[in-house]
């Protein structure tokens, strides 16, 4: 029976190749993943059980991402919540064939020159983690509670533009979700429309 089992497995794999984007929503368990960050360190979500985790989908060439870094908004959120013990993981799912791809060395330069304060920047070059979560845009955010449950998913704030001037007046959903959850309250906005550039999957 062995060769048959192998073949039917191969057939099943072939069938699964056509699957579309998932959609990890608030209330669901955050799927585990293992990536290697640009420093070469493993980043496994389940290793951070017991802590709040923020996942930030990132592409340095996207004007919507640039808005949040040029204004200093993203760095200060990373610092503020990093100091409170939140693990902030920045993930870039850009495929190496895209002109927006930046290899680990270039990404390290960007982290330095942009003063990115997240715990780690990891390249998800085959897009697997992005597809498992259903990351559609950059920036798109997930907030995960210490039990490993998603408490927020979606766009970072309520101003879907790339204008730096729109940052100050915006309601930031990630900050609100973390503040409310840490205060033991229910998250008032658990979902927001993701906005930005499309994630550059293959």
């Amino acid at each position, binding site marked *: 029976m062995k060769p048959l089992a192998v073949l039917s497995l191969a057939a099943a794999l072939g069938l699964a190749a056509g*699957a579309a984007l998932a959609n990890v929503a608030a209330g669901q368990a955050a799927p585990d993943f293992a990536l290697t960050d640009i420093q070469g360190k493993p980043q496994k979500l389940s290793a951070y059980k017991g802590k709040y985790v923020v996942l930030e989908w990132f592409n340095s060439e996207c*004007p919507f991402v640039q808005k949040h870094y040029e204004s200093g908004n993203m760095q200060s959120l990373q610092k503020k919540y990093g100091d409170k013990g939140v693990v902030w993981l920045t993930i870039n799912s850009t495929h190496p064939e895209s002109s927006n791809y930046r290899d680990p060395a270039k990404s390290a330069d960007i982290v330095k020159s942009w003063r990115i304060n997240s715990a780690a920047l990891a390249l998800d070059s085959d897009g697997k983690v992005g597809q498992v979560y259903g990351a559609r845009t950059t920036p798109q955010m997930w907030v995960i509670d210490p039990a490993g449950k998603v408490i927020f998913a979606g766009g970072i704030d309520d101003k879907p*533009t*790339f204008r730096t001037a729109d940052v100050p007046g915006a309601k930031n959903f990630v900050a609100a979700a973390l503040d409310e959850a840490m205060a033991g309250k229910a998250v008032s906005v658990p979902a927001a429309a993701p906005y930005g550039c499309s994630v550059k999957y293959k």
Partner: protein
Amino acid sequence: MATTARSLLLSLLLCAAGAVAAAPVRQPHSEAELIAERTALVPGQANAIALRLKMEPHWHVYWKNPGDAGMPTSVAWTLPEGLAAGPIQWPAPTRIPVPPLVSYGYEDEVWLITDIQAPTSLRPGTAVKITGKADWLVCKEICLPATAALDLMLPVSTVATPDPRYVDAFARTRATLPRSADGWSLSAFARDRHYVLRVEPPPELGRSIRNLTFFPEREGMVDNAKPQTYAMRGRTAELRIPLPGQAIGETTALTGVLVAQQSSGALRAIDVDVKLGPAPPAPVESEPGAPLGLVLALGLAFAGGLILNLMPCVFPVLAIKVLGVVQQAHGDVRKLRTHGALFAAGVVLSFWAIAGLLLGLREQGAALGWGYQLQSPLVVTGLALLFFVLALNLSGVFQMGLALQSAAGALKARGAHADALLSGLVATLVATPCTAPFMGAALGYALVQPALHAMLVFTALALGMVLPYVVLCFVPALVRRLPRPGAWMESLKQVLAFPLYATVVWLVWVLGQQTGIDGAARLLAGLLAIAAGLWALGRWSPSRRPAARIASRAAAFALAVLGLALALPGQSPQASTQRETAPGWNAWSEDAVRAILARGAPVFVDFTAAWCVTCQVNKRLVLQSDEVEGRFEALGVERLRADWTNRDPAITAALEGLQRSGVPVYALYLPGRAAPILLPEVLTRRIVLDALDAARPSASVTLKPQEPT
């Protein structure tokens, strides 16, 4: 008089000056300019000002709801006191796929019109400067923000005439603006993780509408990327719009824009704001004829399952199971029955698994139809290997405890029950390549039905397939009539290997269509290595010397690994469009069909695939026969071929538009007719020639008055 003359002169001067001020501002991959519809502002009246965005080919800008990604274009106006700018009048957008996402926007060029209202206090003879700061995002694979400060000087006058240079463009743009839904009958409800939007156009729009697309007003209302499908019930179209994986905000009404194609071929956009009502009870019962459709489908599937037993891929397997029964003929009747029942269960369960997987993937939005398995070179390769190994086994090259081969022995074996179930699974697995080509249309129909119906149809198919064997197991009288076991059984087994080899030949050809001659050669080389390995196994494995046994097994294993490594397809399949087309035939696209119809010529579309045997037979014996070719030429019918051998979402969407989900489909489009004429799956020359008679020049002349727009 003097003032009029002066203002006229001023207008002329300003026209020249205005042309300079309104020069397009270039940004990377796009340019922008402001264009006034009328040459002057009239106190108390509005003038339409368009922001014209021109993009490089395939670059796009966004609608007011950009969909999965992007940002709507905006204009911040700076106007002299008293002037007021209205909102942007958004033309109907198009779906822009950026796999796996879909955005809503415009490619090539778009005119975004804003009405600027002039106050009555404006004094004729003066001039007014209108300034707009436009912000837009232009994307292809990557996105670039663009901004431009644009201005326009307009004279104030008592009369204003449309600028002749732009009359056409304004008219074209206004034709694409969504209109009020007055006269349309719209209703909506939610069912099965979809919104259902029922649309009945006003009578003056002709017989029917088609190619419906709903564009939601805001993000999070619908799943942008999953395909929307529609079905016609008389003049009423039922559009199914997938719900989002994560709803954002509460949706109590469907708000947005609906775009549909009228019978004239022109697109019509309407504003939609429909409250979600309660789902009507069981839509199937309310439609006369629908339950009959299900019963008929069940009957056909059952008959199809029966016939499947005679197909080259299934017949040998079933025949061998019957041989097992022959050897068992005078054995334990109860055991035989258990075995038959378990085998049936195995077949039914594995059909359910395949159907469930397919329905699940479709729910996920994958553009799949029946036969989809064979669109994957990996699956084709896997099946070729499977059939080849089974065939070698039947030829007697090697002996192995394969479930189907040991059917007789299995009855006595300890794992008899598991083995019976597994042999059912194997039977289904070997049956799949035969179901796709021969039953694609019927199963395709089943798949566009609700999930429960689809599962019932698959169940009927499975039951039909196992019926002969189960009857044999349960009626001992029949078993006793079978010939006595003997040497003839071994001969029959070896003969039965040949249909399996034939199936391998066909699968190699399919793979060749998908990955080219190199891919096919690699598979053949892989088969060769596997044959050598299995031969070594068969030759020395029964040997009494342990060294020979071990060596043969090692050699067989190494050769099998080598064979697999050679055979497994590495590169991605070629795009369907790269394949050569037969002379007289062109590659299909939705645009090509539209363009040819606009010229007033009929179009015949052959939706086909290399792995679809019916399609190939129809193509060789009917479509490319001299008689039919000659008639195509004589009547000036353009021929397009939509090749679905590999996955192609555009073709899948077109098939869904035709209410089909598998190939073959033959569609004859006539100019001025809303729906194409669909021909049966199995063609004869007579059928095609009769259908072509409808496209005769005399017929198209009577249709001529309705000029395509």
